[in-house]
């Protein structure tokens, strides 16, 4: 982008002191968001005052205070419902929700899946650090099985959610995944999310330095990242690795990692990513890929068009206003069965 944009990242920085721990992954995410918004405004013709940030409770949910936009710091788990109300009330706003793995998937799980099912046009940034940070280190619904925390001193006995799998299972139309440290990719995912009409979920794998340090390190560490993650781009081959020599193929009902040039595998055999495919089959396999058997999928995994809840509400309002002969309260009060007393 050139210097012609109407806003700069500075326009989205509030005067509040950022109070996350030093080294917290949230700092990088905040920077990426503040860099993304001028581009979003440019691409979708939004003005500054149309940006509205809504959050729940948790470390991530302090986010709106640091944004010079309209902001609503809600209560635990309910950001999705609050954001839904904001968008229905004023569909012209661009509504961004900031939430964490506990906020969105435990206490707010119900609202999360139903927003996705309705396909309301909000952008959900889900900061996933697999731990409760603000309450100082209890396991979350995404903590790995066996994880030792303050409330699981002998290891958790619960299977974690994979947020992508949950989004797809709830009929999600947009899912992207990124790493806190990959600011460029985060920015790209956020812009794609903004462009998508409907509920967009961007899972940001975030590092909590205090209570769950290095939880994503196996694949997210800089030295192994290229070989242990794959950045998916619509229309491009599913290729990864430091030398771009590994790729994904589909064998029967499974994906498989292959080395290009070995065992007769050529670039032609490698799958092309189609984020717009309505059938969620391959997307489901992609979101479920985990290290060490697979690279962890990053980028926009699913982005399919569908009608949105907010558009449908506006359409119905317009249609019924047009059709009905009741135009005001007096019309309604005098409609139906009435009688005159002389």
């Amino acid at each position, binding site marked *: 982008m050139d210097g012609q944009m109407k806003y700069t990242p500075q326009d989205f920085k509030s005067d509040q002191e950022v109070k996350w721990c030093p080294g917290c992954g949230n700092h990088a995410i905040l920077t990426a968001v503040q860099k993304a918004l001028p581009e979003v405004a440019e691409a979708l013709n939004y003005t500054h005052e149309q940006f509205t940030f809504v959050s729940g409770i948790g470390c991530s949910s302090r986010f709106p205070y640091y944004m010079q936009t309209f902001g609503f710091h809600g209560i635990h788990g309910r950001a999705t419902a609050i954001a839904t109300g904001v968008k229905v009330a004023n569909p012209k706003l661009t509504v961004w929700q900031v939430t964490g793995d506990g906020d969105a998937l435990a206490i707010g799980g119900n609202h999360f899946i139903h927003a996705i099912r309705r396909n309301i046009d909000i952008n959900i940034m889900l900061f996933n650090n697999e731990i409760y940070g603000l309450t100082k280190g209890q396991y979350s619904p995404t903590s790995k099985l066996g994880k030792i925390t303050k409330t699981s001193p002998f290891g958790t006995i619960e299977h974690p959610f994979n947020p992508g799998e949950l989004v797809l299972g709830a009929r999600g139309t947009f899912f992207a995944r990124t790493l806190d440290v990959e600011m460029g990719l985060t920015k790209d995912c956020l812009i794609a999310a903004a462009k998508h009409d409907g509920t967009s979920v961007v899972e940001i794998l975030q590092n909590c330095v205090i209570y769950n340090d290095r939880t994503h390190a196996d694949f997210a560490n800089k030295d192994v990242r290229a070989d242990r993650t794959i950045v998916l781009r619509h229309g491009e081959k599913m290729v990864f690795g430091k030398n771009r020599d590994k790729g994904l193929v589909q064998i029967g009902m499974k994906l498989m990692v292959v080395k290009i040039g070995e065992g007769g595998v050529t670039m032609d055999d490698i799958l092309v990513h189609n984020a717009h495919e309505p059938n969620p089959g391959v997307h489901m396999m992609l979101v479920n890929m985990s290290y060490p058997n697979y690279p962890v999928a990053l980028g926009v995994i699913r982005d399919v068009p569908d009608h949105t809840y907010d558009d449908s509400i506006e359409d119905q309002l317009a249609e019924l206003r047009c059709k009905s002969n009741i135009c005001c309260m*007096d019309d309604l009060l005098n409609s139906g069965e009435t009688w005159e007393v002389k």
Partner: protein
Amino acid sequence: MEETEKCVDLDEAIIRFSGDSGDGMQLTGTLFSDTSALLGNGISTFPDFPAEIRAPQGTVSGVSGFQLHFGSRKINTPGDYCDTLVAMNPAALRANAKWLKKGATVICDVDTFTEKGVARAGFKTANPFVELNISDYNIIYAPITSMTKEALKESPLDMKSIVKCKNMFALGICFYLYSRPLEHTEAYLDRKFRKKPEVAAANKAVLNAGYNYASNTHSFASTYCVAPAPIAPGKYRSISGNQATAWGLMAASEKSGRPLFCGSYPITPATAILEELAKRKDLGVKTLQAEDEIAGICTAIGAAFAGDFAVTTTSGPGLSLKSEATGLAVMTELPLVVVDVQRGGPSTGLPTKPEQGDLYQALWGRNGECPLVVIAASRPSDCFHYAFMAGKIAMEHMTPVLLLSDGFIANGSEPWKIPSMKDFPQIVPPIVTEAPEGGFLPYKRDELRLARSWALPGTKGVEHRVGGLEKDFLKGCVSHDPINHQRMVNVRAAKVARVADFIPSQQVIGDESGDLLVIGWGGTYGHLLSAVEDLRKEGKSVSLCHFNYINPLPKNTAEIFGRFRKIVVCELNLGQFAGYLRMNFQQFRFEQFNKVQGLPFTVVELKEKFYELLAR
């Protein structure tokens, strides 16, 4: 018996229609009520649904009832005990016999009083009338089912559809008994079955057959006439409490220019408000059937932040679920109306039955010092006014308002003189249209109301953050400062208390001073009024002080209390309003009269209590 029955003039009459929940008793009652309204009678009605949708046929748990009280004066309640009971089967008789006046008329479908039918209803003997000790009442053994079949023997309808017409036979009998014309019902049937003329014809034939049966068989010693009531001229309609609540909220939306948003989860007995609002897309109403009660209120809070007039509707258990979010609305100082249509509690309690047990929950059911405005509607039609006022106060004072209704007034209906919107005040919310010089301060207040301003997303230059954390007194940013917290707690309380400057003075019905002041609030109004009016006619020194504004209370409240020798607070709970009044007015002694049976007061029991207090 004479050759022709004489028409006896009555001041009032109470009819109860009862049958299986599939027998069409609600419609039958409504049609009788509409005809009586057209004749100019005062009316009050109440449907008595079972909690089950279609309980097994012929059993007591499946009985659905509709009570109608009409008269030649203004009618305030659906009545305690009935003059006439229509019982479409033995179960209906068994379920409703306790509501019969002594010597009442019972019209029963004798075809259903078979050995099997009687046993199914749970009677222990073959003669239900003897068993119920009502055999000397005026029992009309009408073969309703067989006469319906006979009347339609030429009809092209199948047998199931034919039998479905039998409620019209019962209605025809009642029309004859109370000297009502059939035209309104016939016109209704023609309209309703416009596309099925054979069904309309069958229903009309059965209606007439019922009427003629009653006339020809001389079943009744006399028929009755109930003259029109002296009611104000004008255009009227019938309205239920839930419908009036929905419309009052819509009226507030129209007068404020803010679109109406309702986020709600279905719950008995509040659901009809959401249903009514969902119909009104033509008036721009947005309804969101949420995934749960919490989402209902949270979507509403989001909508309020974004500039809609936001409401959420529920009943007691749902209000419990909304507690935390209600606190958020208090903290963010956004306009919001929470409607609680009370039902019997605790827990799931008695979902279809009225009670006033949620008062304390409404006043205090939140964490922290968390005051809000509490208003209660007192009859079906005034739900419109109080819903409107809830909206006006919420938007002009920037506060959540909790509007209490109950299952009794929500489902009950009465004639209502149609108001004109030009007679309602404008609602002027403190919306900021541009950034003030020197910067926008989200929590700066106006001096009169202590309300902060409403800065809607999309308005240039007023970007700000709100949330559940304690706010700085002016800037609205997060503040953990101890003095600031005290100041904010005080100002939130003062803001709600300040509403007292904007509500009408409390009225007294009857003399301004005297021996006994009867105090009530909310849906008990009709019964309390009837009882007090009866005693006043007897020359007793009794007045009624019925509250609609609960928090804050009207400013003249204590002054009224001081003018009476004795005070009794009557409520359908264990004494919540009495406790609230004691807390506020320790100088007075409050007697109590309480009932918690999932039933309204009866006028009879109220009068007994008042006699006793007057005698003491």
